[in-house]
């Protein structure tokens, strides 16, 4: 008897661990994300508390006119004269102006330090007043001569740069100048500013290198003793009244910066990671639901006995839910702790100086998410447990062969159809400006997944029959595997559905990226006439002097600069792109639905716009739109034409002559060009690359290379998605292991019988493996179908925005199905070994 209890206990332990793993993994993701973002935020706050120490008041230029509805923070430059005005205000101890522009690259031996895809550094002037600076030298000296530069500690370590070393510095791909590293500094003790590097120069150097043209971006002011920050702020504001500059206390400025930083951290790190964490937990909930269903089925006799002995339904329900709650709490605590370890590891990879911040909030969220999900998932099995009739205690426990209740199919249909309707509604009725409602979109996808999971049992029989067909060719093991997969459609379906979710999302993303790639390729082949393009793979714009250089090359022609900027059209924030319209037909061709593209070449203050934007803003050829530029310029543009957008070209287009007067700094985004007449493409490209030697940040690509670059970028994105969804898929595979292990346990007798009548261990393992493969392939079939549907719906919604091609990447889908089959085999290893080791005698003797 003891042996029996021990065995049951051991199998319980295994069961607990297998069940808990899914929740542990999901909660790990949640807690890791929370700890990571808390730590980043905390580090940033720590830095900022240093920053605002000595700054009583901060003056910034006016917010750009185009900032409506955007992240605040950016401001227009301040004229130098403002500094003099501020210094005269009574109570001011010191005031210093700072230029701060990102776009600085360090070059060494004609190469960008850290590689071309490296983020650029923030360029600033060195401030010597210790009250008004957050930078501290860790070695060397402050910049004193025009060619001194101080760089941040992390850039120095990563690039193996030392004090005294010569280095080339370039701002937005302007011609590189030689500097000497005079020192290495930290920012508030951190080796970078929120992982962005920095380079510090003397003020005159910063002014000229960063093209500030006698302006500042920020003026920091310290107060004489006895003057409060608020008093000083009001006095400065009064002195500057009449101009629209922004005046804040140091504390206000710091908290605004902090808020922007927090928004940005959440937007780019926290929220995306939490979405993937949620997906993992969601997939885990399927596993929980399945495990508890199987447990309830296996404990039918025990639970029926309880009922026969007088336990109420409520008590049986409570029994199951309590077990779920305990499992949930246990798993959440473990997941929370593992999450901290993972976050710690990640933080060490990115920045060793950050101190881990574990907040109570993270614990509470992790506990709630893990426990609530587990309990919700256990509700249905618990309710099923209450329906066990007491007489079941007297019956021989047979592994059940289930039917499907109608309510379930009904609920599945409602969820699936409702989700589909919600999805289409949110996608196709979305306004062009606001985009689809992401909450509705997310909930709809969730409903589709749940609906599919509920409906999946109907598909188990036919799909298992079709998929089981090749298995049957392998004789009895394959045959029996097919029967086993079908004997309990709900169990098989729920196990498959967990895998479906991960695969569906991967498939949807694959469809979207493939469609994007096809659309961009079509655009490159159709709209783009230029055979060569110059661009900066790392960051945004580059200096117009590049174009000037290229124009001197006789092997090149049609040099066409393309630059864009933010504008308000009416009160809608959007962008406008300007290009050299002199070469228009040889650089770009448009398919016009009205008016003519040449209109922007012949008349200034004329624009052409894509048909989608025109429709949504009610713009017509011959009409006028008012564009407000960042610097406040308001220009009436006449609409010269309407064109069909594609994946690369959309929005408002104007000539450079129209655009340039309204730009604070002229920066090219790309240069499109052609070989000069009679020059072959390879010769022209060789010459181009030679011209670009002085600008190692830039690449000169043929159209084919440009296409390859884009597909490489899309592939990188797809790989990132694989990694992020990997955990959800892994959890689903654990789910297959779990289901099979429990099934094997349940079928001990049957397995023993099969072994007794001559099934070899190998055949037994093969049988379990086939069942696993069938489950996994069912998940793949569902996932590929649902995912393709999702992807196609999303792409169709983007048709009017220029994503004109819908591409279903067949190779990828085949790959996913094959991968799913392999996952099935891997998942079967452990259960198959167990199955092949069942004790035949225990199976055939009646206890």
């Amino acid at each position: 008897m003891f042996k029996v209890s021990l065995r049951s206990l051991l199998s319980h332990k295994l069961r607990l661990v297998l069940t808990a793993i899914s929740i542990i993994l999901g909660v790990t993701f949640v807690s890791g994300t929370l700890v990571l973002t808390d730590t980043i935020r905390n580090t940033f706050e720590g830095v900022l508390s240093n920053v605002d120490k000595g700054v009583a008041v901060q003056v910034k230029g006016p917010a750009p006119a185009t900032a409506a509805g955007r992240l605040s923070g950016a401001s227009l430059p301040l004229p130098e004269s403002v500094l003099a005005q501020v210094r005269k205000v009574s109570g001011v101890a010191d005031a210093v102006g700072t230029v701060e522009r990102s776009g600085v690259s360090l070059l060494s031996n004609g190469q960008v330090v850290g590689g071309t895809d490296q983020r650029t550094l923030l360029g600033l002037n060195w401030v010597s007043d210790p009250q008004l600076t957050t930078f501290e030298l860790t070695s060397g000296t402050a910049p004193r001569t025009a060619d001194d530069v101080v760089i941040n500690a992390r850039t120095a370590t990563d690039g193996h740069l030392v004090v005294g070393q010569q280095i080339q510095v370039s701002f937005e791909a302007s011609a590189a100048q030689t500097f000497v590293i005079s020192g290495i500094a930290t920012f508030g003790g951190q080796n970078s500013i929120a992982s962005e590097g920095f380079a510090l120069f003397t003020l005159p150097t910063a002014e000229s290198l960063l093209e500030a043209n006698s302006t500042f971006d920020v003026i920091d002011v310290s107060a004489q003793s006895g003057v409060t920050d608020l008093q000083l702020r009001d006095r400065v504001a009064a002195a500057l009244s009449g101009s629209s500059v922004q005046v804040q206390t140091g504390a206000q400025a710091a908290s605004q910066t902090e808020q922007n930083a927090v928004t940005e951290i959440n937007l780019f790190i926290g929220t995306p990671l939490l979405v993937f964490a949620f997906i993992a937990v969601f997939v885990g909930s399927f596993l929980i639901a399945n495990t508890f269903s199987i447990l309830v089925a296996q404990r039918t006799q025990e639970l029926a006995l309880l009922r026969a002995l007088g336990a109420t339904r409520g008590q049986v329900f409570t029994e199951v839910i309590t077990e779920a709650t305990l499992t949930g709490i246990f798993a959440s605590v473990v997941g929370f702790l593992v999450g901290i370890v993972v976050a710690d590891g990640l933080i060490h990879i990115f920045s060793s100086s950050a101190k881990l911040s574990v907040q109570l909030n993270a614990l509470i969220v992790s506990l709630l998410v893990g426990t609530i999900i587990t309990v919700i998932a256990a509700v249905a099995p618990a309710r099923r447990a209450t329906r066990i009739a007491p007489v079941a205690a007297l019956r021989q426990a047979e592994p059940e062969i289930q039917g499907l209740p109608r309510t379930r199919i009904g609920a599945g249909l409602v969820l699936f159809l409702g989700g589909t309707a919600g999805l289409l509604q949110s996608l196709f009725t979305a306004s062009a400006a606001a985009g689809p409602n992401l909450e509705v979109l997310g909930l709809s996808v969730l409903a589709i997944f749940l609906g599919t999971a509920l409906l999946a049992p109907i598909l188990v029989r036919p799909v298992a029959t079709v998929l089981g067909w090749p298995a049957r060719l392998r004789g009895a093991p394959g045959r029996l595997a097919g029967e086993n997969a079908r004997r309990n459609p709900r169990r098989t379906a729920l196990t498959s559905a967990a895998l479906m979710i991960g695969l569906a999302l991967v498939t949807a993303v694959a469809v979207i990226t493939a469609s994007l790639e096809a659309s961009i390729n079509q655009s490159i082949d159709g709209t783009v006439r230029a055979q060569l393009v110059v661009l900066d793979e790392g960051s945004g714009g580059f200096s117009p002097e590049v174009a000037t250089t290229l124009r001197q090359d006789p092997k090149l022609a049609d040099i066409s600069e393309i630059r864009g900027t933010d504008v308000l059209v009416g009160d809608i924030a959007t962008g406008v792109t300007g290009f050299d319209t002199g070469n228009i037909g040889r650089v770009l061709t448009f398919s016009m639905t009205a008016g003519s593209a040449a209109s922007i070449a012949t008349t200034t203050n004329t624009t052409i716009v894509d048909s989608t934007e025109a429709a949504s803003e009610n713009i017509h050829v011959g009409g006028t739109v008012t564009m407000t530029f960042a610097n406040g310029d308001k220009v009436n543009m006449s609409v010269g034409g309407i064109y069909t957008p594609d994946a690369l070209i959309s929005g408002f287009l104007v000539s450079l002559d129209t655009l340039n007067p309204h730009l604070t700094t002229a920066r090219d985004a790309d240069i499109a060009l052609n070989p000069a007449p009679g020059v072959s493409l390879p010769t022209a490209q060789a010459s181009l690359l030679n011209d670009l030697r002085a600008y190692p940040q830039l690449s000169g690509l043929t159209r084919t290379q440009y296409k390859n670059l884009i597909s490489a970028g899309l592939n990188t994105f797809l790989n990132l998605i694989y990694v992020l969804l990997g955990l959800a898929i892994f959890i689903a595979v654990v789910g297959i292991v779990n289901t099979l292990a429990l099934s094997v346990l349940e079928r001990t007798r049957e397995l023993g019988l099969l072994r007794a009548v001559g099934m070899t261990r190998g055949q037994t393992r093969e049988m379990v493996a086939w069942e696993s493969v069938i489950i996994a392939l069912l998940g793949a079939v569902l996932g590929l179908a649902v995912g393709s549907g999702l992807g196609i719906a999303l792409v169709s919604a983007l048709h009017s925005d220029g994503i004109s091609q819908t591409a279903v990447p067949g190779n990828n889908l085949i790959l996913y199905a094959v991968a799913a089959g392999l996952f099935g085999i891997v998942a079967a290893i452990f259960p198959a070994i167990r199955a092949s080791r069942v004790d035949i005698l225990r199976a055939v003797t009646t206890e």
Partner: protein
Amino acid sequence: MPPLPAAAAAISIAARTVDAVKVYGRGDTAVRALDGITADFTAHQFTAIMGASGSGKSTLLHCLAGLDRLTAGQTFIGGYELGQLNDRQLTLLRREKVGFIFQSLNLVPTLNALDNILLPLTIAGRKPDPGVVDGVVQITGIGDRLRHRPSELSGGQQQRVAAARALVSRPEIIFADEPTGNLDSKASGELLGFLRKAVDDLGQTIVMVTHDAFAASHTDRVVFLADGRAVQEMRSPTTDSVLAVVRHLGE
């Protein structure tokens, strides 16, 4: 399939044990379930093994059938010494030469009656001989139930399906462990009649463990066990003669 080891001996002996010893556990708790049994089971005969509960009947059957291994001594089936075979060879031997009927839960619940009957052939990847299958189905009288799953069959029908399964691969020997143990007397009678017919009409060899004198009366020969030894033998048993021996042994 690798060739089984060469045959050793035996012509009309379908199975044999020589000084078979089986010890469960060790030390103080060791149980000698078989204590040196030597016995032959003649081909084309229906043999019963009887004895008090715990006398070692099931253990003997399991060791004879290659489901379990002896502690000492030898068992032979069709000339193969089971102790010489590894797990895979034993499995193949069970598949090719041995049929089983257990007391209950004999069938695979996902397969219908016919598929259950054909299971050993399916596992072996052999094509069923339609004549043999029809014959077996005929004798068992479950022809109208072939498409039913086990859960839709009565206990007696299930046991007859199990018997048909044991027969269909025409094994050299069939072992049955209390096949009527869970059946009422009518169903028992039918099953025993069927087994008897398999021996008489098809020349099958059957060894059946039972504690039921009426069941034993259907056999050609009864081997009585007590404390892991073969203590007595009887040919052409009747219910009364068997009961007499059982009573005598019980004293």
